[in-house]
């Protein structure tokens, strides 16, 4: 998914705010989708869509902070930029602690907002890119047989083939074969690369 397909999701109960933001993001060349309430966003939102969320803090029904919580609970990593008319510090801190990308006060300067939105989209793009690589690496690790996986765990912990053979109750030659097969399957050129890839795939050395 390229950054150009990224969308700015706007959730605000005030029609005039929604309209003005639509104009602004439109003029900036960003895709915009507007929602009048948190509930509406939850119903229509596709978690795989990339971009960022421009969220009004105070809204009838579910407010901004509540929506943030719910999205987090659903595992969404969509960056959130909070807009608030009140600028109340406690809400802002809470939002940032919960991982908000930014916290802006109304009336907001268009440049600040666009910068924040661009930053958030970039961040999302990177996050999504990273997520994709890890997934591919994991995919590679998933092709390993249980014995090969077992050997991998010992290898990345820095043990010698002899030590591994002793621990697994087999001969060093067998370990060598497994190790070579792992290196091929994982597409690692060296032990150092293997260790880095295993780390990214979240495999714990044993």
């Amino acid at each position, binding site marked *: 998914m390229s950054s150009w397909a990224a969308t700015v999701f706007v959730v605000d*109960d*005030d029609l*005039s*705010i929604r*309209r*003005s*933001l639509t*104009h*602004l993001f*439109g*003029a*900036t060349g960003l895709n915009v989708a507007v929602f009048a309430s948190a509930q509406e966003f939850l119903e229509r939102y596709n978690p795989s869509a990339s971009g960022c969320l421009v969220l009004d803090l*105070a*809204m*009838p029904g579910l*407010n901004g902070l509540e929506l943030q919580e719910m999205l987090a609970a659903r595992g969404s990593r969509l960056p959130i930029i909070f*807009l608030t*008319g*009140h600028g109340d510090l406690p809400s802002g801190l809470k939002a940032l602690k919960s991982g908000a990308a930014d916290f802006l006060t*109304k*009336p*907001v*300067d*268009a*440049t600040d*907002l666009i910068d924040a939105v661009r930053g958030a989209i970039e961040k999302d793009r990177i996050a999504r890119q990273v997520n994709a690589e890890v997934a591919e690496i994991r995919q590679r690790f998933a092709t390993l047989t249980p014995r090969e996986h077992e050997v991998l765990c010992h290898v990345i912990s820095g043990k010698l083939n002899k030590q591994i053979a002793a621990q697994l109750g087999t001969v060093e030659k067998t370990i060598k074969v497994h190790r070579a097969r792992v290196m091929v399957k994982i597409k690692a050129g060296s032990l150092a690369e293997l260790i880095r890839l295993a780390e990214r795939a979240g495999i714990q050395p044993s």
Partner: protein
Amino acid sequence: MNWVNFIWALSIWASLSLAVLHFAVWLQQTKHLAYLSFSVFAASVAAIAFCEWNTMLARTPEQYGRLMWWVHFPMFSGAVSLVCFVRLYFNAGRPWLGYTACGLRLLDLVMNFFAVPNLNYETITGLRHVTIFRGETISIAEGVVNPWIKVSELSWLFLLLFVADASITRWRRGDPNERRRAAFVGGAIIFFILMGAGYSGLIEAGLIRLPYLTSLAFLAIVVAMGYELSLDVVRAARLARQLRASEDASHESEARFRTLADTTPVMVWMSGTDMLCTFFNKTWLEFTGRTIEQELGNGWSEGIHGQDLKRTLEMYTSSFNARQSFTMEYRLRRADGEYRWILDTGVPRHIPGGEFAGYIGSAIDITPHKQAEERLRSVIEAAPNAMIMVSPEGKIELINAEVESIFGYSRQELVGQSIEMLVPDHVRSEHPNHRGGYFTHPQARAMGAGRELFGRQKDGGEVPVEIGLSPLQTPAGLFVLASIVDITERRKTELELARQRNELAHLSRVTLLSELSVSIAHELNQPLTAILTNAQTVQLLLSKEGADRGELPEILCEIVDESKRAGEVIRRLRVLLKKGEINRAPLDMNEVVDSVLKLIRSDLVNQHIAIDVQLTPDLPLVDGDEVQLQQVLLNLIVNACDAMAEVKAIERRLLVQTEMAGGREVRVSISDQGRGISPEELERIFEPFFTTKKVGTGLGLAVCRTIISAHGGELRAVNNPHRGATFLFTLPATAQGTQ
């Protein structure tokens, strides 16, 4: 038979009989000198006729001259008696004319006395025998006429003038009977004297040669006078007969009158044409304890109190002279020596013919009434309020000193005047109607039926007053007693109170708005945000080469709309913050609710309060001050929100309702889902300085209740059946109905 003898003898006989007859009448009524005058005149005419008759039969000039000498005596007595008769009978004629006629006649008599042969002729040269009346021969003198006979003619002239003057005067008095009499008697006298004198003149001028016929002319006068006098006699006789008949009747009616007069409890008196009293009944005499002799004439006035005497006699005299009825009050000494107030009414009385006969009057002892009146007077005088007693005709009967000080008039200027002089000009014309209405249904009540009343002061100023009316039944009839209070001071105090109330309401409003400042800031922030964003978008589009500028008009439109929205918020805020005069106008409560919700909306959002608005469409309008009613609503909504601060966010619900109530009222209710109001609080929440909040003046609800009361409505609080409380207020709908 000789015609001359016959005619003259007959005329002598006729004159003499009339003379004798009327002399006899005069003897019966010596007061009526007209009869005597007539009698003398008739006798004189007889004497003249006798002399004339004899001159016609005279044989020698001496004899003729002698007879003519004699005739001046009856001429004198005739003229004098004629003057007397006219004066007495007509009761008119300028006396100097009569005196001059008589004087000249006396001069004639005196001159004649010394004239030879008489005043008519200087000398009579001879007698001529003339034949008249179918061969009768009579003598006529021939000689030189005496120029002094003009005295006699002058006398006749004055006599004529005198009679003419008297007749005209009599004629002018107008009575038809009198007129006829004046024309007949006066006319006859004038006509026949002119004839007789003219005839004599012709003889004396020698133009005709005929005997003197003066006596025949005079005889005609005698007959005319006699005819009138006999008519009078006949009339008098008829009257006398009637009088005798009516006397019997009046004797009886008088007896009846006296019985009645003596038995009535009313004191009765009568007076004659001379103002002197001629009768007092037994009741009067018993009252005064005096005898009839003591009271008769002016004796009765001796019993009148010294202070009242002059006034009473003046009233009596002036009414009497004007022949008018009178009613007067005076103190009269009773037999026991005590002076009692008497109400005395006198009316002129007339005998059946219509002639004024004096007065008849009745008097009663009104001392008890007078005392009651005096008591009333002192009660009214002592009253702390201004009091005015008014008759059904609107006449001011009685006032107290307070009235003088409120209206600036003195007592003399008001009593007896119309009450309308104290009514302001613009309502004066309606007042008599209201007054009439009151006397139709008299009952104690406040005047004006809730309208503001004003009294008109002497200097033309108007004073705000409150007037209580109560009917007052007195012996003199129904009156109304108006109790008037000058409420200038109260009005001032009321205005000051209203001003303070206004001030307090404003203060409370400012406090309320400061509580709402966050919400208000948000309401202002929203449009400003949209404006800023839109404006910067425009900048962006304009700075970028080749940008799609198709949206520019739309964006600019939005900037305009949002600026207006921000302006509207500020306007609303300014209205609420303004310390203005109360400005009542017909309002739609739905619009007021709407406008308040716009101000407070974001506050509700912040507090997680769900709002349910149930507005009944087509509500009747109410008459109210928009700002103050907004204030009440804001206050109640803020209170409702505060009441739900400790309730779980999901359960915070606010219900705002408008509806019709009882047909002619609009009801607005605000319900919360809070903990409700405890019974102790329920009693006290509307008291000033009572508050359940940590921060609060405790004035909000007190001010709200004051505002709603001032609008003629009611504000109260009730607990909801399930949970929370409802504050509701009613406002009377205007007569105009719905929008």
